[in-house]
Each structure stands twice: as structure tokens, then as C-alpha cells.
């Protein structure tokens, strides 16, 4: 469903993503981990077609993003890390706008908005302007907009930010359900517990390079202490001399 072949992206002299190759199949939840500035959001934006790689190829459902962007984008549901919405549209108007732009019939859009509004509990404020929403409310609307057209691929950047525990639990169960339906979910997160709990495979990115890819069990096995969580494996792989190695004690 998602294929990245030797993808490189530079911003000036900085190499944000370096020769990245990956595949995520349908019915799989892939968690993309990495410290701040590792290149996760850049990768996700390239998969969503918002950024263009300097070299390499990205295919979504067999459509190459460079040449068949419209076809590829029609298969994707994207949830950004910052849920910026049109401040002067209501939640319902925004969802209708997105649904119609994906070519859905208005009756179907209305029906899905009702279902999603109920599931994500934003029905009560659906007819108020998005400019008045809290971060969590916006996040619920953006997630609904990504699911509205029944995408075959879901690309998510930090989905849990701003969500309350109930919302976070709902998201996790929605993603698992989508995966069961055969959807490919590509999720970047800092919340290692979420990755551990939901992911089928995990990839760790550092300084734009993919350090390792494997199932959760395989990654856990990289840790030194048996029974330790993803955190230990993550820190072991990503903390090097180049990071400065700040010890917690030095902050006291």
C-alpha cells in the first residue's frame, strides 16, 4: 500500500530524510518512532503529497505520488500533528467541504458526518465555528475528515496530542478496526506506549536515517534488560554522543 524507495529530502544543507526505503502493507499498523527532528513529519508529509522528495520514489496503492498525485491522494486519509482548520467554517461545513472535494455524494457525506460526530462526540459543537474549538475538538474533526472518504491508507502524525484519555482510547480502537478491514496505517508518535500497544511493526528513525525496522517483539529484544519496554530499546538506539547525552541529574 505504501512504498518508499531510497527517498531523500533536504532543506538547504540539512538532510531531513536520508535514503529511506520502507513498505507498509494493507492490514498493518506501522509505528514510526524517532526523537525530535529525526525526519518523521517530513516523511509523513512526503507520503501525503505535501512535500516532494529530492530523490527516490513514493507509491501509494500503486500510484506514484510524483506522477499520479490525484489518484494517490484520493486513497489517503491524513491526520496532521497540528489540526489547523478553516477558522470561519463550522465543523460540519468543513467536513462537507472535504467530503465533496473527495467526490462523495452529499447524502452519503451527511450520513457519515452524523456517524463520525456521534463516534467522536463532537455533534454538540458541529455547527459552531472551528475558530472557537479547543485543540482536542479540532483534532476530533480532523480525524473525522481523514476517515470520511473511507481511505485505503491512513497517515497520522502524533495522533494522541491534545486528546483526552477517552479520545485516545477511541482513536486506538478505530485504527485497529481499520487495520482489520485491510487499511494500512502509518503512524508517527512519541508515545511509545501507544506504539507498543497498537503497532504491528515499528521503525526507528534518527537523523533522517532508518535505524531499524521490525515487529514490536523484535525491537523489544534489542533492549538490554529483559522485560523492559520500547523506551529502553528506543533510547539505546537513538542516544549517542552526537545528542549531547543530557542526563536528568544535570537539570536539577
Amino acid at each position, binding site marked *: 500500500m505504501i512504498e518508499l524507495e531510497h527517498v531523500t529530502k533536504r532543506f538547504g544543507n540539512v538532510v531531513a530524510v536520508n535514503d529511506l526505503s520502507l513498505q507498509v502493507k494493507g492490514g498493518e499498523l506501522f509505528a514510526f518512532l524517532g526523537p525530535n527532528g529525526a525526519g518523521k513529519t517530513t516523511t509523513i*508529509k512526503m507520503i*501525503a*503529497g*505535501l*512535500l*516532494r522528495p529530492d530523490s527516490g520514489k513514493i507509491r501509494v496503492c500503486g500510484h506514484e505520488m510524483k506522477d499520479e*498525485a*490525484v*489518484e494517490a*491522494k*484520493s486513497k*489517503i486519509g*491524513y491526520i*496532521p500533528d*497540528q489540526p*489547523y*482548520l*478553516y477558522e*470561519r*467554517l*463550522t465543523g*460540519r*461545513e468543513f467536513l*462537507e*467541504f*472535504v467530503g*465533496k*472535494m*473527495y*467526490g462523495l455524494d452529499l447524502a452519503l457525506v451527511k450520513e457519515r458526518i452524523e456517524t463520525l460526530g456521534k463516534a467522536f462526540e463532537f455533534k454538540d459543537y458541529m*455547527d*459552531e*465555528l472551528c475558530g*472557537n474549538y479547543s485543540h482536542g475538538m479540532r483534532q476530533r474533526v480532523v480525524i473525522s475528515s481523514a476517515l470520511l472518504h473511507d481511505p485505503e491508507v491512513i497517515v497520522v502524525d502524533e495522533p494522541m496530542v491534545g486528546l483526552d484519555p477517552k479520545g485516545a482510547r477511541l482513536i486506538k480502537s478505530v485504527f485497529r478496526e481499520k487495520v482489520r478491514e485491510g487499511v494500512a496505517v502509518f503512524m508517527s508518535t512519541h508515545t511509545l506506549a501507544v506504539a507498543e500497544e497498537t503497532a504491528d511493526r515499528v521503525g526507528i528513525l534518527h537523523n533522517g536515517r532508518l535505524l531499524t525496522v521490525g515487529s514490536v517483539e523484535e525491537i523489544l529484544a534489542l533492549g538490554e534488560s529483559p522485560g523492559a519496554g520500547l523506551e529502553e530499546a528506543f533510547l539505546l538506539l537513538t542516544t549517542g554522543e552526537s545528542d549531547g547525552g543530557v542526563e536528568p541529574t544535570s537539570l536539577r
Partner: protein
Amino acid sequence: MSHLLQDAKSQPRLKPAFILFTGGLIWGGLLLAFYDGFSFMEESFPEISPTLTRYLFSLFYMSLMIMLAFSTGIILFASLYRSEESKFLLSTPTHPETVFSYKFVESLTFSSWAFAFLAGPMILGYGLVAGAGVRFYIAVVALFPPYIVVSGASAAIVVLLLASYLPGRRRALIAGLVVGGAILVAVPGVRLLSWWKLIDAAPEIWFRGVLSRLSFSLSPWLPSYWMTEGMLKASEGKHESTLFYGFELWANALFLFAIAYFVAGRKYATSWSAVQGGGGARRYRPHGFLDAAMERGFVLLPQKLRILMVKDIKNFIRDPVQWSQFLIFFGLLAIYVLNLRNLSYNVRSPAWRNGVAFLNLAATSLTLATFTSRFMFPLLSLEGRQLWILGLLPLRRKGIVLGKFVFALTGAIMISESLILTSDLMLAMPGRMVALHAAMVLLICVGLSGSAVGLGAAFPSPRENDPSKIVSGFGGTLNLVLSLCYIVLTVGMLAAVTFLAVVRQPDDPLPPILWLAGLLAAVAASTGVMASVPMVLGIRAFRRMEF
């Protein structure tokens, strides 16, 4: 400031060079025009020249005062209550009045630099004709800062009080300000128009009547009067009087700023909180009139284009800052056009009516150029942080830019065609001229919309939320200059044809069909270049754009 300088250094050299060149060109042209105008007045009407100059400057400074107050008020409101920076600064251990002072200076600088730039040639032109010495220029430079502070501080006090006592009624607030502003302009305008139509009376009586109706601008209670008198006395070498008016301005400026500072200390923090909580409860009915009207009214357009247009229209009409400026732009022109019969222009000779209709077309086109530069150029930039939504849609990017073009064109045609057709009907123009004017305006709408949307896509500022800051950048300036040149070219061609027709047959100045066809072909050709080149550049740039 150091960041601004660094930014300037990092820009390609072409950009500052272009800004300097076009700025210098406009400034030089204005200086020449004002110098010629003042010289003409001085040589042709030496007896009344001082009186006329006094009226001219007092009206100029009064208009400046009103425009500055509105402009500073609108920018300051957004800056104090909507900006992320204010939110951050209020969370730090900084006094609210300090944050206010900083934002006040920022807003005032931003709203007044253009006025200072444009007032310069007028003052310099006058100074050169009057043979004023260095002290005159020093006096003007010393008088200008307190003058703009008086306008700005008055606006700031109003903004703080309104935000404190009407926090949840932003729309009503801005609508009230617009209506208030319109009344402020309309009342003296109507008084003047009622006398203007007696133009056939004896010139001296008529002239005195016009001046008496403008005498409100010479009220000694107005800061614009102090500014005018201070400046004129300096040119006459009466420096004691200049000092008097200067002290009057400085004293009032400091007093008004002290009040604003005091009100900010008491009200800013609480009103900030109230404004954030205000207006949240309003609910909008889904599938309202607008959706239905767009579905039916624009049925020939592709569906996705209609959807994009509905979104843009909703964003526009729900933003009072945008539509209030739009109302000011065209409201005054509409009042004028609807009053053409009150001026008895429709019963005048065909040559006179032709001239007035031509001037109306020129005024509408110039206003339209400002409108497209102010509202249509920033359309893509204003998508701002929401650009990811458009970038993500399964839609060719060319379609997005074309959608903005159709939106801009539709708005421009609706407004300008209504104005021109009303103007021609009021002037009882012959059908051939009505058709010519309608066709000209249609072409001008295409040219201006294409340039504004195309250059807006080619030079986007998606990180900027404030449209007035977006249009004052390189792309916005380039668009404005090109739009004005295009208007001068196309309206100039129309002027030539209108003039030649009057010379050929003064009693029936209808240009022959062949002339009209030639004129329209030439305008269509320049419109083609004006619209297509920026659109091609804009589409290319938008295709390459990353979000």
C-alpha cells in the same frame, strides 16, 4: 529590528532594487504633479491661492486623521486580541500596559508609513513653490509624529473600551464602526453635493458656497487644523505660531496616549480574556441560503470549483475586518453613482456626459485595482496554515489557482459592472457607449483578477495572517504597480477614443464601430498578457509549493 535588517540582507538584490525603483518613480511622479499644481495655483490665482492651500491641507490632514484612526484601530484590535504574540506576552510577567504600548507603536508605524510616504511629495511640492526654508521641513518632521499619535491614541482608547464593554459583539462592533465612518464621510459629502449641482450659478458665488461647506475642516478644535496651521505658519516664517501649534499637538498626543496607557492598564488584560470568550455560542444553520444560491447560480461551473468558491465566500463574509473595508471601498463609489442625477449630469451635453462616464469608468477601474490588490492578491496566502487541506485534496493544483481566479473574477464583475451600468443609466448614455463600457470593464476585471491571483500564487506569504501585511510585500507591491500601469494603458486608450470622437463630432460624440472594435481588440490583447503571464507563473509556483 535586527531581524528585519537580517531579512533584508538575505533577500535577493532584485527585490529591494525593484521596490526602491518603483517607490522612487511613484514618489517622483507625485512630487512633480504637486509642484505643478501648486505652481499653477500660485501663478493663475495669486489672490485666492493661500485660502485654497489652507483648505486643501486642512481637508487632506482631516482625511488622513480619519483614515489613520480607522486603520490603526483595525490593526491594533487584531494585534492586541488575536495575535499569538500578545497571548504569549500576556502570559509573561509583563504589565499589560507595556504589551499595549509595544503593540500600539507597532500598529501605528504599520498604519502610518504609507501616509507619510504619500504626504511627502505634497508637502515638499508646496515647500518648493512657497520657497520655504529648512525650518519649514524641520517643523513638518516635528509635527507629524504627535499628529499620528493623536489619531492612533484616540483609536486605541475606543478599541480598548469597545473590547471591554462589547467583547462578544465583534460583528456588531465593526458594523457600527463602518456605519459611523460612512456617516462621517457622507454628511459633509451630501452637504457639498447639494451645492455642487448649482455649478451654473455665478462662479464667485458658487466658489464661496463650496468653501463655506468645507469650512468645517478649519475648526480650531481639530488636530488637523493645528497640523495645517503649524505647517503653513512655518512656511511663512512665523515660527512662534508654529511652536504654539506644535506644543498643542505634542500636549494632546501625550495626553491621549497617557489616557490610552491608563485604560490599557485597567482594561486590557480583562478585555483580552473577555474577547477570547466572546462570540463562541453562535451556531450556523447547515445548508443555508448561500449553499443553495451557489448550487443554482453557478451551475455551469465545475462542482469542485463551486465548493471552493462557497468556502472562500463564507470565509469572507464571516470576517468583519475584510467586508467592512470592502464596504468602504465601494460604498462611497455607489453613493456617488446613485447621486449622479442629483448633480443633473444627465441633462448636460453629450460631450460632457461622455466625459463624466469616462471618468466614472476610470475611477471604478482604479478602485477595482486597489480592491484586487487588497483582497484578491492575498487569497492563497490567507489559506496560511490551512494550506495542507488544499494540498491534500485529490485535485490538481492548477484547479485550485483557477478556482481562486474564478472567485476573484466573479466578485470583480458583479461589483464593477453594477457600478458602471448604473452610472451609464444615470447619465442616460447611448446604448453603444453602455455596451463599450460594459465590455471594457469586463476585460479589465479579467486582467486585474488574473494579475492579483497569479502573482498572489507566485509570491505567497502563507505564514502571515494579516492581509494588509501580505499585500505590502514584494508581490503585493508588484501587483499594485502593474495593475495601475495596466489601468493607465487601457483607460488611456479609451480616453483617446472618447476624445477623438468629441473632436470629430462635438454634438454627437459617438465613436464609429470600427474605432470601438479596434479599441476592444487592443484592450483584449493587453488583458491577455496582464492575466495570462501572472497566472502561468502563479500556477507553476503553486505546483512547486511545499506545505
